[in-house]
C-alpha cells in the first residue's frame, strides 16, 4: 500500500520574468517500509521535491496524496497538522532549540500535537532511549557532540510515530564515524518497519537505501530498486 503518491507534480517559479520549472512533471509512489534515497546535483529539484514530500510546500499543479489525504488542496493549518502527525524531519544542521534540554526538544512535536504532559514525557524518554541517549536527557545541545545532537533530532522525528521519516543530508555536518552511527540508526529504524526518505548527494549514504531516484532538471531520470 502506498504512503505517498505524487501524480504529475509541477512546481513553477517565476524568477525575473522567466519561468523556472523546479519540478517538471514528477510521478512518484512511495510504499510502506521503503528506504528511499533522493539524489541529484544542486538545482536538480531535489530540495523542492523534499519540501513537497515534507508538506512544507504545495505544488503549482498535480495531485499529492498522503495516506489518502489530499495535500495539494491543504491550507497552512492543515499542512502544519499533517507535518505534525505524519512526518518526522531530520535536518542537516540538526535544528535543535539551543536553550532547551534534549528531552524538551523531543517533546516539541508532542506539544504542538496537544499531547498531555505526563504522556509527552514518557514518549520523549522512550524515543531518546531508542537512539541510545537515555543518559543525556537533561543535557542542552551545546553539551552534546554533533552525533548526539543528530540523535536527539532523530528521537524528535520519531517521537510521534510518524508515517515517514524525512532526512535532509543527515550526515552532512558530521564526521564519518558519527555519520556511520547515524546511518546505522536509520538502518535499524528501517528494519523496525519505518518508511525512510533520505535526501543526499553522497553515494555511500544513498547505498544504505534500497531504492534510489535521481533527479535532473526537475525530472526523475532514474529510479533503481535494489533487490534485497
Amino acid at each position, binding site marked *: 500500500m502506498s504512503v505517498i503518491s505524487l501524480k504529475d507534480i509541477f512546481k513553477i517559479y517565476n524568477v525575473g520574468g522567466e519561468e523556472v520549472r523546479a519540478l517538471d512533471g514528477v510521478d512518484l509512489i512511495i510504499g510502506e517500509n521503503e528506504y528511499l534515497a533522493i539524489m541529484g546535483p544542486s538545482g536538480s529539484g531535489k530540495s523542492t521535491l523534499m519540501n513537497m514530500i515534507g508538506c512544507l510546500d504545495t505544488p503549482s499543479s498535480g495531485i499529492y496524496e498522503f495516506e489518502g489525504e489530499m495535500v495539494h488542496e491543504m491550507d497552512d493549518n492543515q499542512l502544519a497538522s499533517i*507535518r505534525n502527525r505524519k512526518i518526522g524531519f531530520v535536518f542537516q544542521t540538526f535544528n535543535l532549540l539551543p536553550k532547551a534540554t534534549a528531552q524538551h526538544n523531543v517533546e516539541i512535536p508532542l506539544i504542538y500535537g496537544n499531547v498531555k504532559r505526563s504522556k509527552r514525557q514518557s514518549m520523549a524518554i522512550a524515543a531518546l532511549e531508542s537512539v541510545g541517549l537515555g543518559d543525556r536527557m537533561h543535557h542542552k545541545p551545546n553539551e552534546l557532540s554533533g552525533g548526539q545532537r543528530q540523535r536527539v533530532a532523530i528521537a524528535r522525528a520519531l517521537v510521534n510515530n510518524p508515517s515517514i521519516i524525512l532526512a535532509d543530508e543527515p550526515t552532512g555536518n558530521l564526521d564519518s564515524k558519527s555519520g556511520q552511527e547515524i546511518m546505522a540508526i536509520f538502518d535499524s529504524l528501517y528494519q523496525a518497519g519505518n518508511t525512510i526518505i533520505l535526501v543526499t548527494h553522497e553515494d555511500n549514504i544513498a547505498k544504505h537505501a534500497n531504492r534510489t531516484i535521481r533527479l535532473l532538471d526537475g525530472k526523475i531520470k532514474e529510479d533503481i530498486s535494489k533487490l534485497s
Partner: protein
Amino acid sequence: MFSLFFENLYISVSSVLANKMRSLLTALGVVIGILAVTLMGTLISGLDRSFEKSMEFLGKDVVYIRKFEWFGSKEWWEIRNRPNIDVKHAEVLRNRSQFAQYVAPVSDWQTSIKRGDKDINGVRITGTTDEYAMISTAEIDIGRFFSNSESHSGARVAVIGKDIKDALFEDESSIGKKLKVGNYIFRVIGEVEKQGKFLGMFSLDKQIIIPLGTHERLFTRRGWTGINVKVNEADLGDATEELTAMMRQLRHVRPTQDDNFALNRQDPFKDQYSMIKLAIGGTGLFITILSLVVGGIGIANIMFVTVKERTREIGTRKALGATPKMILTQFLMESVIICLFGGLLGLGLAWGGSLIINQYFPSDMPMGLALVSLGLSMVVGVISGLAPSYKAAKLDPIDALRYE
C-alpha cells in the same frame, strides 16, 4: 491548548532572561509610563485626602466675612483701601440675621509663646468668643473652651493647639499650667485636637485661642479681623445674600458702590483644586501616553529583531507542526511578557516613590490604578507585538529553515 500555553510561557520567560539587559532597556518606556501613571494616581489620592481634610476645617456651612476675597480677580489698588472688619458687627449680625446659627468675631495676631526656657515662634493668637467652638469642626479633646462670660472679659485663659502643647509641655499635662503669650501670662484651660496642615502649607495646630476681650486689651487692634458665621447648609445662598446686605448697611456702602468686604466660603478652594488636579492629571496622562507610545515602538522594534534572529527556530517549529496561529501566540506572548515585566518594575518603583510622597503628605498607591496599569502594559505588549508576531506567523517554513 494548555501545554502550548506553558510552552509559550517557558519560551517567553527564558528568552527575556537570556537577554536581560536588552529586555530591561526595551521595557524602559513601559516602566516610565507605568511609573508616571501610578505616581500621578498616588499624588492625586494624597492631595484628595489632604484637601478633604483641609476643607473639613473650613466647613461646608460657614461663611467667613473678611476684608479681602480668598480668591479674587480684583486689582490690589481697588481693594487696598477697604476698612477693616469691625468685630463689633458680629453682635449685630447675630441679633438681626435669621439664618445665622452662630456668629464668632475673630481677631488674629502673631507672636511667640514661652514657658520657662522653652519657646515657640510665629504662633497665631486668635481672639474670639465662645461661639467659635460651635463653628469650628475641631473638637476640644482635653479641658474646656472658655465660657460666654470669659469671652468678653479680660480673662487670661488660653486654649492651645497641639503644636504648642508638643513644644512647651511635651508629655506633661498642660491644663492649669501657665505660659507666656508675648509678655503676658496665661493659664491653659484646654487643648484642641490635632488638625494637621492646611493644604500642606501651614500647621493648623500652631494656634492659641484666647477671649476676644483679652485679645483687644493686650494685643493690638491692628490684627486681622473677621467674622465667622455658621448657617444651615441649605440656606447658604440666602444667608450669603442676607449677610451681604447687612454688611453693606453696617459699613455704609452706597448702592452704587461695590462691596468693600468679602464673604468667603470653601467653594472657590474646590474650583482651584479641581484645576490643579486637572493639571497634574493631564501632565501625568501626557507623560504616560507619550512614554507608552515610545516604549511600544521600542518593543515592536526589538520584537522584529527577535523574529529575525529566530527565523531558523520558527522554521523548525513550523516543520514540527506549529500552525501560524501558534507562532503568532508565541511571539505575542513574549512581547506581553516584556511589557508585563516592565509594568511590574514600574509598579515597584512607583511603590517606592509613593513611600517618599507619603513623607510629605499621607497618601497611598491606589490598587485599582495599579491593576489598570498592569492591564495597560499588557495592552501595549499586544499592540506592539502584533506586527512582528504576524510577520513570524506568515514566514514561509522553507525560507525560514534555509535562513542563515
